[in-house]
């Protein structure tokens, strides 16, 4: 008798759950506690229920891409001004030590300082002892600052001077091809002209906007 009554009551409760909205949970649960005292004990032993707006964090609660910190344009401008002032004061004082420059010359890029020797694997139309200005400068840097060109720095900003020291030929390189069992081989000796440049000075003009 008691069992059938209990089952009937449970069915009524289930229909109630389906018919009513979700926010009527609490009284239903209390009814469950009355029916099954074990459940009531379990509920009372737990801490009080969290608020309905709380969602526990999962792997999908934040987007998978990293959070981006936005800097306002005013702040950025202020930052730029500060940096410009510092670099201009440094350049005006000429307090920097040794400067290095990244120069584009003879279809290659060279990282260059004072008193550097560069070996270039081709012929240059300048005599030995001529002073040359390397114009395509990509980057200039010192101990405290770096000037990055996009892609080149201005001609009136940096001046890199070099002297042609030596014009020679490379050692005779052998170009050989051989195909076994086909009676095919060719041998050629390649001698390339070389030029040696000594970088004399790198100068930066104190003019930045």
């Amino acid at each position: 008798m008691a069992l059938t009554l209990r089952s009937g009551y449970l069915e009524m409760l289930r229909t109630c759950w389906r018919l009513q909205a979700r926010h009527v949970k609490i009284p239903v649960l209390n009814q469950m506690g009355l029916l099954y005292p074990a459940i009531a004990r379990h509920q009372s032993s737990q801490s009080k229920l969290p608020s309905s707006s709380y969602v526990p964090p999962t792997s999908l609660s934040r987007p998978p891409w990293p959070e981006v910190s936005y800097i306002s344009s005013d702040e950025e401008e202020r930052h730029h001004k500060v940096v410009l002032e510092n670099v201009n004061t440094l350049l005006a004082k000429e307090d920097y030590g040794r400067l290095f420059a990244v120069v584009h010359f003879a279809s290659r890029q060279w990282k260059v300082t004072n008193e550097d020797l560069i070996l270039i694997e081709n012929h240059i139309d300048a005599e030995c002892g001529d002073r040359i200005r390397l114009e395509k400068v990509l980057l200039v840097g010192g101990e405290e600052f770096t000037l990055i060109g996009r892609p080149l720095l201005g001609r009136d900003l940096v001046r890199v001077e070099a002297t042609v020291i030596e014009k020679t030929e490379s050692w005779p390189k052998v170009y050989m091809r051989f195909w076994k069992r086909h009676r095919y081989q060719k041998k050629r000796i390649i001698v390339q002209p070389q030029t040696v440049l000594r970088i004399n000075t790198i100068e930066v003009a104190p003019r930045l906007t």
Partner: protein
Amino acid sequence: MVFLTLSCWIRNRGPDRYWKVQEVLSNARHFRGRKNRCYSLAVRAVRRAFVYATKARKIKRRNMRTLWISRIAAASREHGMKYPALMHNLVKSSVEVNRRVLSDLAITEPKSFLSLAKLARAGQQEGFGAALGDGKEPPGVFSRIVTLQ
């Protein structure tokens, strides 16, 4: 053919065999075993050496480039960036420093490399900001995701 005296029966071989052999052996002097002394073995070894040298000059360029790339990747990871992101953002900022010089800067000029990494990072953040936008749906679009918030 009529040779009337004995001296005409003697064959005249080439006068410079010695120098032709020395030309090949001089390239083989640092080899191991009989290849550095005996001409027949040396010819084959020298031929292989020359062919390997020719091929290696092409492969050296490839290997150097991979070395520069791995160095730049390691240096950029020290600053919290990855190699593809760094290169893409540098190209977008129209900085045309090549990989060889970038790896040299990473080794000898760490501050300059840091400044380049920061430049690339700024470009990257700008790209993210442009892609993400306001975080709001465009007007007139109905979406469940917005309402469930």
